[in-house]
Structures are given as C-alpha cells and as structure tokens.
C-alpha cells in the first residue's frame, strides 16, 4: 500500500484535494489537508460471520431483501429498467433499486467497464456497507466479450472486485438476470457469499491490480 505522502505528490491529484489554506471570515488561516481531513484513511477489517442459527436467520433476511445500486455501465444497463417494470417485476423477489451506495447491498456491473468507469465502480463498491454482493452481467465482465482486445476496457472483473454471480450472455435478458438473483439468494442462504470479507482479506492483491491500470489514482486507498 502506498503511504499518504505519495498521494500528495501525485500529479493527477485534483487541485481541491491538495493541501491548501482557507482564510476564515475573521482573517484566521485554516490549513486544510483534504485527503486526511475529509476522508477516513483506516483500512477495513474482516467482519466475522455469526455462528449457527443466528447467521442462518441473518442470511435468510439478507437474501430476501437485495437492494441494488442504480449504477449502469455498458449495454447491460438497458436491461435493468425492464426488470422493475410490471412484466418482470423484480420487487416480488425483494429486489429493489436504491440511488446511493450507502443504501444498497448489491452492485451490478452491467457490461463492459472502461478503466475510467472501473475507478467509479470501485469507489461505489467500497462505499457500500457490509454485507455486499457483486453481480456481473454479460460476457464483457467475464472475459472481455467483444471488447477483449480494446485498450480501454478490462477483461476480467474478478481481478478487481469480488464477484458473486456471473450471468453469461451478450446481453442477458431480464429473465437471465432474475435467474442470477435466484442464484445469488441461494449462495447467500448457504453462507457462501462472503465477497466483502474476501475483498478485505485479499485487499493488497486487489489494490495492486486496480492500481496497475488506474494510473491516476487520486483518491484514498480505501473509499469509506
């Protein structure tokens, strides 16, 4: 992990994130270091699952209320709105859309990810609260799909975020997405969907992969 000094000398650091001085209304000088003052620099910790019946009950509860972050990338974001229309009606499975990462538990990566979008996806994922799950839609997230030789889209999502369920297809129909949700529920109920903890355990590896391609890393190492 790079220490805090590096990030300040980063040439890509946005001007408002550099150390600067603000003059207050009474002429007082306030030294602001946005990266340390405005962001939490702590690293996340593994949250151990409870034992026995308690965890089973919690997993049942989690599986029956999947709140999806409305974050669309690639062609697949077009397949998601019909999911919440009367025809497919994902609400009957406890799947709902939420507008902010803080409220949601499922991140759907719906297609190809440009490097620029990956950065935003990582931020959104890290800002979500535990427990959180990732569903990857489409062949682009699996092996690059038809953009496999593009200079700007990633090939394998599981090198950057812990993926729970892959849904194959180009593009998967809403039925397939619903089937994916069913698979995710099974996984959660079995207690296999520990992606968030896996992410924390292998954080160094994930961060190394992410930083290999995101060359202007102008954000904290972990975005709380």
């Amino acid at each position, binding site marked *: 992990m790079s220490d805090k000094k590096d990030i300040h000398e980063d040439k*890509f650091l946005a001007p408002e994130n550099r150390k600067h001085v603000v003059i207050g209304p009474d002429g007082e000088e306030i030294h602001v270091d946005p990266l340390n003052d405005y962001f939490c620099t702590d690293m996340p910790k593994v949250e151990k699952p409870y034992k026995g019946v308690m965890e089973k009950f919690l997993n049942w509860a989690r599986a029956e209320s999947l709140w999806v972050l409305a974050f669309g990338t690639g062609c697949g974001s077009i397949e998601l709105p019909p999911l919440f229309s009367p025809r497919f009606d994902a609400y009957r499975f406890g799947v709902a859309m939420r507008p902010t990462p803080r409220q949601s538990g499922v991140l759907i990566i719906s297609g190809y990810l440009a*490097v*620029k979008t990956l*950065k935003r996806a990582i931020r959104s994922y890290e800002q979500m609260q535990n427990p959180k799950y990732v569903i990857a839609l489409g062949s682009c997230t*699996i*092996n*690059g799909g038809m953009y*496999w*030789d*593009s*200079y*700007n*889209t*990633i*090939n*394998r999502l599981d*090198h950057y975020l812990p993926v729970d369920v892959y849904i194959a297809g180009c593009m998967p129909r809403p039925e397939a997405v619903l089937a994916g949700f069913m698979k995710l529920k099974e996984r959660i109920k079995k207690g296999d969907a520990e992606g968030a903890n896996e992410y924390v355990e292998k954080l160094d590896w994930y961060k190394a*992969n992410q930083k*290999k*391609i*995101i*060359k*202007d890393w102008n954000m904290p190492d972990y975005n709380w």
Partner: protein
Amino acid sequence: MNELINHLKERFPIYDVVESTTGPTFVSLDAAKLIPMITSLKTNHGFKILVILSTVDWIEDGKFQLTYIINNPDEKTDLGIRIFIDRENASMESIHKLWVFAATFQREIKEMYGIDFPGSPGVDDQFLLEGWDEMPPMRRDFDTKKYSEDTFFPRPGRETNDPAEYMKQKLYPDE
C-alpha cells in the same frame, strides 16, 4: 454547389473535388490555406455550422488526414474539406476562434492521435482516457491487442476460429 466550387477554385488551390448526390461534396486543400478558406466560407457563404472534425491515419503515406465537414443551414448543403498533415510532430492550426466548440474536437484528437493544436483551449487536458501514458491509442501503430493482453489479465481458454477453415474441416475432414 458547382458555382461555389468554381468560385473556390479561383481563389484557393483546391484539388480532388469529389461530388456526390447523397452526401457532402469533398474537396482537398493545402493545410496552410485551410484557415483563410474556412473563414471565407463561414463569413461569405453561409457555412455557419461545423458538423464534425475527424481524423484518419494514413500510416503508409506518413500522413494524417483531417476532415472538416461544415454545413450551410439555409441552403441545406454540406461541404467536406480534407487536409493532409505530416505524421511526424503532427500539428495543425486551431479553428476554435471560428467555432468555440471545435476546441472539444481538437482536444479529443490530441488525445487519440497526438495531433497538436497550439492555442486551442484545454487541448492538453485529458478527455476520455485518464492517466494515459502510452502512445495515443487511435494511431495505427499502437497495438491494442498486445496492450490489452499485457494489461488486463486475459482469461485463458479463449479460442477463435477462421470460419472458412472451420467449415472446411467440418465438411471435408479428409482433405
């Protein structure tokens, strides 16, 4: 259109006039004469709109082609102007003084092809690529497949078949 082309021929060294009944008429021009001609077209001939500014990489000739398509909304005609500039240290005069938003086209061309437009506002800022430090990716000597394989952890097991070869093997396995 013919009148206009004849008029232009008298005043500017245009060549390679390609007329079309369906699309715009294209003319080619020396890069140095572009600004006077495009200014005159805008002020005297009603070509008020810049439709697009695009680039082609002719790597075999060592040239970049810049295509300016302009539109005359009153007569509903389009005119395409092609200019060729050297690939080495490619640089072209900016037209942002005529159309402010041309700066955006030029910024993208700078990023994707490395053609410089001195004086164009924000031309050095990053546009679509963040933190890109390789050769501009749309140049034809940039090997995007190799870059992708080196960078993005390709998943093994990806096979491609040449359709002709594959069908031949399927249909005539003995040959």
